[in-house]
Structure formats: structure tokens, C-alpha cells
């Protein structure tokens, strides 16, 4: 029923004393996530929602046996917080922070190759295994337990598509928002591999958007390695070339790759139907189950 997290996952929240960290730590606890510690330099010894706060992630791991981290740290300190998480050999680090400088992420990306920690994000909503745990900012009430794995570059688009699924009684094994930035940790291919290897995931939704070539790479991977049926959605069909649409990655270069059309074609060629609307994506998934 789960990929990456479950109700045993012991979570440390980096930045738990900040506004967002505090609010969402509360939401995670309310959802049932096993939040065991917070980590904020200079705030060791405090408690937030009854959860003990430590000065370092290292202490949180030592004292509370944390194995995953959710990072709510301002952009200027986000890379440092990710490095800290990587340095404590956590299984999973989820970086929610939006606006991390891309040169910082290039350094993080390099460090990732030297550790066993999996990074989700940054600039992402996190991930959720309905009924067990959510790590991040996703609104828990729209998700339902079920058979569908979902991976998406966009947070709010994830919610939209999940809502369409849940409304018609289709639940999810795990939903992962991987983030829309040019340099992220876990990408489509990584997530597809996890879902393919999960016996409980019977169908997969993949939500992409214009910019970059991750969707094209994912299509090639699906063609070669994925037996589980996949339905896709690509945001930004109407975006004019050369304009940056919010996400740093969501710009169409005009050179033919990275466009909605090239992504949809690549997915179709790999046997993946792409919905014109979130409802159509749900139609495809319904037909798979």
C-alpha cells in the first residue's frame, strides 16, 4: 500500500519553529504521521505540538531514531539543511522550500550521488501514502487509500488530479510531488521505478509540464521498463514559446524539445494516453482498473 513512507516512518521536521514548519508539522501529526522530532539551530530543548526540538538533525536521529526529514527552511538556508539531512544518512529527505538557488542545487545534486539518502524536491508539496503518513504540505483530506501511484512536477496540479480520482472512488497507493525546478532529487524515472516495483500499485498517473526533457526521458523509460499501465497529463499546451511560466523549468525553448506537443507525442509513442483535462486522466485510469 505504500512507496517510500508508511506509518512506521519516523519524521524529523527541519524548521519546525517557523510559521510554515509549525503549521504543517501540526497538519502532519493530525494526519497520523509519526513526527518524532524537530531540528532548528538554537531552539534545542523546546517543544512544538509536544514534539521535542533539537539543535541538529544529528541529535534528532540519535535521540529519536528519525529516518526521514521534511525541510521547511527559508531558501537562503535550504541547501545547508539538505546537506545536513544527507550527512546523517536518513533514508529520505523531503525539501518543501521554494526558490532555492540553482547553483546550490547543483552542489546538492553532486552530494546526492555520494549518499544513500533519497531526496524529494525542492519546491515540491512532498508525498503521501493515504491513511498512513504524509510528509509535506499536501491537503490530506482529498486523498484516499487505493491502487494508483501518482507522480507530478506540480503540487496544485497533483491535488486537482487526485481530487478527480478520489471523487470517483479511485484511491492512491502513494502520491509524490517531485517539484518543478530544473534541478531536483527524485525524478519521474525514479518514481516510476518505485511504482513499477510496488505490487500494490495497479496504475500510475504521471503529471508533467512544459520545459526540460524529463517527460521525454520518462516516456523512453516506460517503453522499456514499465508494465503497469500509465496515464499522463501535460500542463502548458497553450503556453507561448519563450515565456517563463512560473516554474523555473516551465519555459519552452522554441527548439522543438520541451514543448507540450513533444512530451505528449513521446508519451503516446510509449503507449501512455494523455488526458486533455484532469477528468480525462481519471477516465483513463478508470479504464485500467
Amino acid at each position, binding site marked *: 500500500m505504500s512507496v517510500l513512507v508508511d506509518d512506521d516512518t519516523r519524521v524529523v521536521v527541519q524548521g519546525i519553529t517557523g510559521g510554515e514548519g509549525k503549521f504543517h508539522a501540526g497538519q502532519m501529526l493530525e494526519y497520523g504521521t509519526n513526527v518524532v522530532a524537530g531540528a532548528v539551530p538554537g531552539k534545542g530543548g523546546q517543544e512544538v505540538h509536544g514534539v521535542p526540538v533539537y539543535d541538529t538533525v544529528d541529535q534528532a536521529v540519535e535521540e529519536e531514531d528519525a529516518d526521514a526529514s521534511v525541510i521547511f527552511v527559508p531558501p537562503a538556508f535550504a541547501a545547508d539543511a539538505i546537506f545536513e539531512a544527507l550527512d546523517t544518512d536518513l533514508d529520505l529527505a523531503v525539501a518543501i522550500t521554494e526558490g532555492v538557488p540553482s547553483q546550490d542545487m547543483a552542489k546538492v545534486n*553532486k552530494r546526492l550521488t555520494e549518499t544513500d539518502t533519497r531526496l524529494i524536491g525542492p519546491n515540491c*508539496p512532498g508525498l503521501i501514502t493515504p491513511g498512513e503518513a504524509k510528509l509535506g504540505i499536501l491537503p490530506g483530506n482529498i486523498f484516499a487509500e487505493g491502487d494508483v501511484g501518482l507522480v507530478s512536477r506540480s503540487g*496544485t496540479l*497533483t*491535488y486537482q488530479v487526485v481530487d478527480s480520482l478520489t471523487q470517483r472512488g479511485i484511491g492512491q497507493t502513494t502520491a509524490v510531488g517531485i517539484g518543478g525546478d530544473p534541478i531536483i532529487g527524485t525524478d519521474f524515472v525514479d518514481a516510476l521505478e518505485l511504482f513499477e516495483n510496488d505490487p500494490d500499485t495497479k496504475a500510475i498517473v504521471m503529471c508533467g509540464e512544459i520545459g526540460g526533457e524529463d517527460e521525454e526521458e520518462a516516456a523512453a523509460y516506460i517503453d522499456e521498463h514499465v508494465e503497469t499501465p500509465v496515464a499522463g497529463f501535460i500542463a502548458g499546451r*497553450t503556453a507561448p514559446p519563450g515565456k517563463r*511560466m512560473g516554474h523555473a523549468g516551465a519555459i519552452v525553448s522554441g527548439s522543438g524539445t520541451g514543448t507540450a506537443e513533444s512530451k505528449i507525442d513521446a508519451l503516446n509513442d510509449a503507449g501512455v494516453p494523455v488526458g486533455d483535462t484532469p477528468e480525462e486522466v481519471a477516465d483513463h485510469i478508470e479504464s485500467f482498473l
Partner: protein
Amino acid sequence: MKLHEYQAKQVFADAGVPTPESTLASDVDGVLAAADEIGYPVAIKAQVQVGGRGKAGGIKLAEDADEARDAAESILGMDLKGYHVDRVLVEEAVDFVNELYVGVTMDRGEGKPVAMVSTKGGVDIEQVAEETPEAIAREHVDPAFGMHPYQARKAVYDADVDADLALDVAGVLTTLYDLWEDRDGSDAEINPLMVTSDGEVIAADAVMNIDEDALFRQPELAEMEDEAASGDELEQKADEYDFDYVRLEGNVGIIGNGAGLVMTTLDLVDHYGGKPANFLDVGGGAKAERIANALDMVFSDENVDSVVFNIFGGITRGDEVAKGINEALGQFDEIPKPVVVRLAGTNWEEGMEILNEDLVTVEQTLEDAVQRAVAYAEDEEGDQ
């Protein structure tokens, strides 16, 4: 954030990249005085942030004062692809025998910086990249270590730069990389890097884009941000409000949270036969004031005939959104254009309780909201 040529050249020169002598001028007398100081011939170059300035008449060569006056008069005040030219760079005209390209950018696919060199400088490098990619030598850089000098030399030799220029070009590339790294560049390019008859290299143009997310640690560069960087008044306003906003051709105004969801809303407007007037992402966690600013932004576009709000709260809370909508619309005796609101996710129920339904049309689903907004836009259009 993109620097103007004159700003980028200053940044490059400070770092030790050879650049031609130049002065910024904003009137004809200033141009003539600068040209006198530098010595003829000079190039007079419009300082606006669009590509293809030369072809559009924004760059002219002057051999003497008469030509400089004519050039200054024709360029200053001209409209260049929608941008008003109010400044020109007066620059020593370089007598060159060859043109190269050097650049540094982030390769998002690899997640690493990449340094590039080509002997096909002076032309549209995107076209070179597409048609003859082998003409550009590329060297990926480990961001933890920075670019070693040998990597710059390798790129230069791979690009078949003339042997007697190779070390100078490698030096420029190393400097450019260090500068790109120190200044949080997203792209730094010299095109063309001119080779003079004396065998020296000099940066005849300079492009520097700064990572907006890193401006907090680049205060000097942040100060160079030019409010008039965009020729579009609405896009300037969006900068003031700090919105991700793109103006489009249609008449259905769109406000949402999260780039992917806003793009999806645009796509659905198109799908249901409407035309999006804009992309406007209020971002994550928007409070009431920001929502009100977003409405002000969209109402400022005279092409807008209806507005659709699509908010799916995660970090954004429905009650804050509703408060912002009420505040913004409460100020009007008559709402300028019909507004359709769709709220879902975090605190949507609280939001629906607060939302003043006398001011807006509420729809439960995205599909219904978009179709309603498209229908309203058609009605409004019909009325005009």
C-alpha cells in the same frame, strides 16, 4: 533577471574580461561627447533587452560626428520590438578578424554547470546549437570544485580555436565561469568574442542573466534591476506586486496558485473554446492582500472580459483567498467584470463561508468554473 549589455559589460570588465571602451548616453549631445572621448569609429547600441537589435536597426556604426548624430537621432526614442529606447551605449568599434563564442550555463538535464566554446561566434548561437551541435565544444563542471583551468583549455582545443589564441580564450572562459559562479549567473555569454588584427580577444557583447532565486545574496546586482526592463506596463505592474505573470492575447483573466495548476487552467480555457488573457500565479501561501493585488492586476488589463479564480489550497488557505476576493471586490460600486471562483483544498469550506456570493459566481469543479468564465467572456464580448 537579465542585465543590460552596459551593466553586464561592467560586471565582466570588473572581473578582468577584456571589453571595448564605452560610455552610456541618453541624448544626442551625450553620444557626441562620448564618441569624441573614445575616438571614431564608434558603435552606437540601443540598450533594450531584446535579441536581434542589429537587424532591427538598434545598432549603428559611425565614422564621424555627422554619422554619430544621425545614428543617435534614429536610435534614441525608437520603438524596438515594443521597447522604448532611452539609452545607448557608445562603444569603441573593434577592428576584428574573427568572432568566437564563449558561454556558461546550467545544464538542467545533467544538473551541472556547462562551459561552452565555439568558433562560430557572431551569429545566432541557438541556431548553431540546433543545426551543427558539434560546432560547440562543451565541458561539464563539477559544481563542488568549480572549473579547473585544464577544463577551459580542453574546451578551447576541442573547439579548434587557433593555437595562438587558445590560451587567451581559455583565460576568458575561466574568468567567465568564476564570475558566473560568484554572481549566481543562470547564463553568462560573450557573443561575439572578437579577435582583433593584433591577435587580442575582446568581448564585443555581453549577456548576463542572474538566478532570481539568488538575488538575496547579490545585493549589488539586485540594485541594477531595471523597472523598465519589460516594455509591457502590465508586466511591470506584476513585477511591483512580485507575481509570476505573463500577458497573453485572449480575454479570460486567470488567477490560480501553483504554476502547473495555472497552466492547466489556461489549457482548459482553451479546451472549452475561450482564450486566456494571462498567466497569473499567486504562488504558495498567498494572504488576502496578495489575492486582492492579483484581482487588481487582472482588472488592469482592458482586454479581460471575465475572470476565473482556480485555487486548490495546500499551503494556500481558502479563507485567506476568500477574504482577499471580498476585500478587492468590496471596493467597487459595480464589479468591472464577472468573476468566477472555484475553491478547493486547505480550508476551502471556511473560505466558502466567508466568500461574498453577491460579488462572485461560485463553481464547485474546475471544469464548471472554466466553462462559466468562458461563457461570461463571450457574453461580455457580445455586449461591446
